């Protein structure tokens, strides 16, 4: 690990974050958007763990990323239930088709 | 020589040898190749043996002979013949398939099933990756198998495969819950997630096996065993491949080596969970016969080569225990009828989950009850006395106020000090 510094991990996490954001912005499938969210959260988690290894954050970073993983799982479960409910009503998961509410 | 020792020594040699003319990268490649060969041999063989055993046992149970034609008396070359046949077969991908995923899915399954072995100690110290969270990581890796199966089911482009994949996903994800809880029960008793330590503290006789440590762990073993049947999609929970309804389930469309990958993975994970059950509940690599155990332990501690003896002997014992459990799995498969999918889910969510929760609660409370009635936390002997050498050797005197150059972590590493701290905190109030 001598040659690998904090910056390297931050760069990977920045790539994950940006990919996630672009994914959220461009995907029209609701589940695709959720995958983008997972990428963003992973970018943040990687940041936290890297800071906990290299920075003075200590174990705080690892504990936070543990909780984030659990919270993300809960959020994904709720989001998926909502997507299914939407699908039952609309027979699609295309976010662009959600146009009943406008004004 | 034992493959693990061989692999480790080769790696050490490559790592340490400054005269080695290659640079680090080719050396790493060589080490990887050697490892792969060993692992392939090592894990391929049990699978072939188990497949043969499955046939034989099935034949006995159904009152027929099983394989007889190939390879001598018991048809012991049958699996090899099967293997040769499978390698020769054409590797087909249906037109309707999503070819990339279809081709990659078996690899995920195989990788997941086989990399779990990295964390499995075959005997004292005989483990590829020794980690404090070994058990947790092993289960985590094993749980990735489901992904490959779901993707295989989906990518095949056939509704039978899709059904099989979906059933499998639902089943495996649900059974992960009771599996996790039952696995935690021996962990609570042992006080560590490190499989090596859990195994080590079951030395010195059958009464020290964790299955006999309390009525709750005794029951927990059976729940654990039932759950592993389901999480390996073994009968009576083999809904994912239910031949009579789904043709072959998620692997309907596969042929040749890719098909055999699924089978290798299934037998590998059968073996893995059996070995895990043996370590967690059935005394790991100890014989359960206390003079023998003690003798092994004392030679390991005293003589130079004694360590090796314990390892080889322990590994054999563990393999035998695991093989027995695998045999029971096969026995059950050919004896019990298959459940319906809703019955499978009911079994899990309505029975196994509450049962495992109850057992977990009981296992947590049991030491407290014992402590108040007979004054110790286990019927036989305090578990703390049997902590492995790695934890106890070189530990400072048990006291929370140790001064000296040990770090706090070291102090904490002694479980005994935790107990002492807890007790003295209690007294302080």
């Amino acid at each position, binding site marked *: *690990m001598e*040659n*690998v510094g904090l*910056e390297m991990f931050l*760069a*990977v996490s*920045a*790539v*994950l*974050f*940006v*990919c996630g954001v*672009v994914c959220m*912005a*461009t995907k*029209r499938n609701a589940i695709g958007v959720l*995958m983008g969210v997972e*990428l963003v959260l*992973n970018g943040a*988690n*990687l940041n936290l*763990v*890297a800071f*906990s290894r*290299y*920075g*003075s954050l*200590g*174990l705080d970073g*690892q*504990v936070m990323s*543990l*909780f984030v993983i*659990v*919270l993300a*799982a*809960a*959020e994904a*479960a709720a989001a*998926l*239930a909502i997507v*299914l409910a939407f699908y039952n009503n609309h*027979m699609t998961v295309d976010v662009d088709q959600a146009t009943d509410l406008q004004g | 020589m034992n493959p693990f020792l061989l692999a480790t020594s080769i790696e050490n040699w490559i790592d340490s040898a400054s005269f080695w003319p290659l640079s*680090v990268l080719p050396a790493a490649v060589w080490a990887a190749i050697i490892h792969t060969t060993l692992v392939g041999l090592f894990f391929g063989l049990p699978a072939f043996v188990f497949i043969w055993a499955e046939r034989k046992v099935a034949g006995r149970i159904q009152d027929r002979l099983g394989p007889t034609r190939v390879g001598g008396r018991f048809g012991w070359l049958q699996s090899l013949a099967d293997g040769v046949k499978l390698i020769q077969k054409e590797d087909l991908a249906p037109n309707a398939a999503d070819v990339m*995923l279809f081709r990659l899915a078996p690899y995920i399954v195989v990788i997941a099933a086989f990399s779990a072995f990295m964390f499995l100690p075959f005997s004292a110290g005989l483990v590829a990756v020794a980690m*404090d*969270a070994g058990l*947790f*990581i092993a*289960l985590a890796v094993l*749980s*990735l198998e*489901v*992904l490959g199966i779901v993707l295989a089911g989906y*990518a095949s482009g056939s509704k039978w495969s899709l059904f099989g994949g979906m059933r499998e996903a639902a089943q495996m*994800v649900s059974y992960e819950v009771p599996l996790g809880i039952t696995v935690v029960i021996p962990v609570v008793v042992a006080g560590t997630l490190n499989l090596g330590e859990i195994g080590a503290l079951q030395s010195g006789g059958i009464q020290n096996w964790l299955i006999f440590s309390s009525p709750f762990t005794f029951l927990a073993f059976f729940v654990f065993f039932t759950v592993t049947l389901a999480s390996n999609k073994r009968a009576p929970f083999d809904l994912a491949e239910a031949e009579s309804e789904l043709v072959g389930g998620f692997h309907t469309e596969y042929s040749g080596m890719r098909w055999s990958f699924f089978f290798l993975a299934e037998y590998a994970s059968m073996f893995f969970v059996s070995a895990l059950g043996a370590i967690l509940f059935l005394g790991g690599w100890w014989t359960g016969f206390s003079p023998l155990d003690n003798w092994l332990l004392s030679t390991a501690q005293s003589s130079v080569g004694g360590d090796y003896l314990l390892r080889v002997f322990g590994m054999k014992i563990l393999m035998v225990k695991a093989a027995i459990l695998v045999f029971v799995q096969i026995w059950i498969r050919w004896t019990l009828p298959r459940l319906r999918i809703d019955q499978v889910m009911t079994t899990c969510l309505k029975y196994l989950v509450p049962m495992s929760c109850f057992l977990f609660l009981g296992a947590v409370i049991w030491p407290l009850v014992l402590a108040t009635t007979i004054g110790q936390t286990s019927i036989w002997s305090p578990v703390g006395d049997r902590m492995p050498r790695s934890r106890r050797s070189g530990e400072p005197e048990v006291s929370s106020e140790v001064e000296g150059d040990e*770090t706090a*972590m*070291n102090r*904490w590493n002694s479980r005994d000090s935790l107990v002492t701290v807890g007790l003295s905190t209690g007294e302080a109030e």
Partner: protein
Amino acid sequence: MSTVLFVIYALAASGGALAVVLSQNVVRMAFWLVISLSSVAGLFFLLGADFVGATQLLIYVGGTVVLLIFGVMLTSSGPYGTIKSQPAEVVQAGIIGMAFLALVASTVLSVNWEANEVRLAHANDHAEHGHVHEVSEPESEQGYNPEESGNTTRSLGTALLGVRFDKDLSLESEDGSNHGHTHGNHEVSAGYLLPFEIVSVHLLVVLVGAAYLARAKRRVDVENA
């Protein structure tokens, strides 16, 4: 060796993330997501966070992604639900993405992290000991490095209770009198007992909600009956 591993994992994580964005088929996206998330777990192992890595594998890859794939299968209308994007959209997204990446990377990567770390460590020493003590081991100043790097289970577990090996216990002073002003009003570093317990309530609530949405109505509507 670990550098090689880092490169492999980093490339797989970034490449997988990129493939998630570029791929048109939802299940393939899920596959690439698995690759990416598993590689992130690998990076966690490299960073000595074995427990977090295992949790990532167990919950994220083995749980959440399976859930997502499940969702895809339940909701896909065609055999392989693909979503075609317009080329213009792709270009647009690409440009915005690159700009965003440039922004984040340029700010985050240009920070002199080591200098900042030294300053913070310096200030901590001032606050805790009133003087700058000899920095004997620069490694130990660099954050949390338990001797058996990678075995974080025990320290994480005790951190949940409030006993912190990386913070309080590694302080040299035994009297504890001068902790008051370094850690705010409370005397010990953060323990995570509360989140640990309250997350369980949260999970319960969310699961009740998800189950409510997913299950059929318990009774037939009066109008329909």
